[in-house]
């Protein structure tokens, strides 16, 4: 393209491009980290940290068929 033959314009463009990539990365990194924080806060609010023992016991119990236990 013609405009790229002009070195001054290309330099400016490069400059802007280089910079905006960094800005973009910072933005993305903060958003990613922020979403983890949100997930963490949600899980706390949801009560997942309230009891750190009972669920580990509960998972070991087998589901018994709800319909008619006398059949077994």
């Amino acid at each position, binding site marked *: 393209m013609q405009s790229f033959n002009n070195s001054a314009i290309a330099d400016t463009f490069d400059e802007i491009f280089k910079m905006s990539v*960094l800005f973009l990365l*910072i933005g993305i990194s903060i958003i990613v980290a922020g979403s983890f924080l949100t997930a963490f806060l949600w899980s706390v609010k949801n009560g997942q940290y*309230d009891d750190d023992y009972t669920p580990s016991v509960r998972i070991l119990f087998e589901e018994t068929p709800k319909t008619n236990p006398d059949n077994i």
Partner: protein
Amino acid sequence: MYLLLNENNLCNYYDLDKNPGIKAKGKFKSSRFAYLDDEGVLKKLAHFIDATHVNITFSLPQMHCASCVFLLENLHKISPGIVRSQVHFQKKEVFISYDPQMITLRKVVELLAFIGYEPYISLDDMKEGTVKKFDRKQIFALGVAGFCFSNIMMLSFPQYFSGGIIDEAGLKETFIWIIFGLSLPVLFYAASGIFESAYKGLRQKNLNVDIPIALAIVITFARSYYEIISGTGSGYLDSGSGIIFFMLIGRWFQHKSYDALSFDRDYLSYFPLGVTILKNEKEEMIPVTKLRVNDRIVIRHDEMIPADANIIHGEALIDYSFVTGENNPVPKQKGEILFAGGKQKSGRLILEVCKEPSQSYITQLWNKETFSEKKKFDSFIHPWSKYFTIVLLSIALISSVYWYFADTARIIPVVSSILIVACPCSLLLTTTFTFGNMLRIFGRNKLYLKNAIVIETMSAANTIVFDKTGTITNARESVIHYTGECLTDPERKMISSLSAQSSHVLSRQLVKYLSSGDHIAIENFKEYNGKGISGMAGSLSIALGSHAFFEDKKQERSAASRVYARVGDQVKGFFEIRNAYRDHFALLVESLKGSGYELHLLSGDNDAERKTLEQYFEPENICFNADPADKLSYIKNLQAQGKKVMMVGDGLNDAGALLQSDVGIAVNDHTSAFTPACDAIIDGAAVTRLADFIAFARSGQFIITISFMVSILYNIVGISFAVQGLLSPIIAAILMPASSITIISLSTIMAGMIARKKSF
């Protein structure tokens, strides 16, 4: 093992399922929970009530294993009225949601009692109606601080690595402003707890450790914000938020709570909830809170008297061990006043209430000054920290004078950077991590401390007061000694068989002692409440009982409980039953004496065991026949002499003394039993390790001193930069986390090493 448990549970479950109309039977009388039918009681206990749902949480102290969880979470299969049940194992609680149209509260409680988990419902629950909620704010604050700190640190790196020169147009400013934005939640949300407690300290004119810390935080952030806004620098926000993050970790770590234990019980927790009253010749169950003067109440065998009352009808034999610690039941006659807290050990009684439960003798005792008076707040800083603050302030002053002559413009930056780098956070971290570790180590060894301050007071104590019954003696074991004519083997067998018929505590201990194998048949068995038992073995009449049972004289003051035995028509001799001292008690006394502790003994019992006890305690330090008020004033006296008193006791009769003492340790033989208000709860089996525990608490001071010296080294390095006006953000950012991490690992490793040395 798991399969076995599971199978057991399933069997249990099927058994229950095959009996659809479950009736409360056997262990309790069905009227016992009648008060739960009261609408007011339901309202106070439940969290949520509407036409089809009632949500309620019960405390089930009997919960002990994984299979309990299974059974309790399958309640809906046993009883269709229950919609959902969810267990919180560590709190020993079950949340139940049921349909009030299909099942009543009383039925739910009876079902729980039937399957062996009788809910613990106390007057306390009724009064407050509040639900303890898991404190989530601490975790929120920790999460926010961690997030902000790590991002601020990351965004600060480019600057440090490039030597502060970032050529990109606008990039440096962007970093700084993002950091600025990220630091706001740290300052205003995460650190708010620190500011709150500093403010409280200021208002109470109490210099607590949070005040200098809050000051340091304010200075750090203020200076950083000033630099950022004025465009003169990037500030110390990374190290500032780092410190807040580390401190929050420290607090979270130190805050070790024992969900299933309660350290703040008062008399209300001990009293029965329901009581049977006589109204127009009919028995009716009402909540204790509705009991009024002149009501007639019915007390059955083994029930507790809820209020001071006169005896109207019946034979009373009252066990006041709960109030006074005296072991032997006292007979009372018609017309005498019975005090609340006693347990009827004989048949049915009819009483007339003369004082409301909240006015009774035992309650009055509780309302005495000590009980309402709050314990003084400990500042919880190492004694050196005072000097630390003084030295720090003088360094700041000297350097400001110096810079006043050298370069006036640099006074404020230099002084503020001194205060930033030398913030007392490392002191706080030292104590929080050391004590947090120790709390956990104590907990593993069955000494449960209320909070970390107890470690400090424990190591400061120099006088130890023991209660006798249940504390230095083991309530579950007894020593039996026979005096009198030799018993032949058949005679022993007869006595053993006779006592096997009775459920009295003494009879059961006797059976265990005699253990003559199979029993012979006893005919014509008779039990005389509070006196003795008799029966016929073949053609021979035999009897067992107190001295008064055989002779009409008043009961002689005996060393311990004595059971006389008559075979034929001749009294052969007596069995003396004493509580056994805990194993290794002599060793404990020796090692405590060896470390220079002054030992005292308070007993609610008579002085029968004086001889034995004088082997362990100085004669002038033993006090018998002490009622709860005596025990309390005894402790007060010791404190008036300037002694730091540790009280070790159990039961309500020690409650006053436990609260008055500098460290009150309640002894608990069953984890499901309840303890009075105290600073620490110790498992009965661990009592004799008390000397080790105290030694460990003392070594905590040593650990703190060492970590403190290390943190001072870091401070010297930091301040030496600061006074020269050379404290760059990068130095602060390296020094602060480095010192925090060193101190955390140092205190953890040292506590672990000392604990291992003491074989904890």
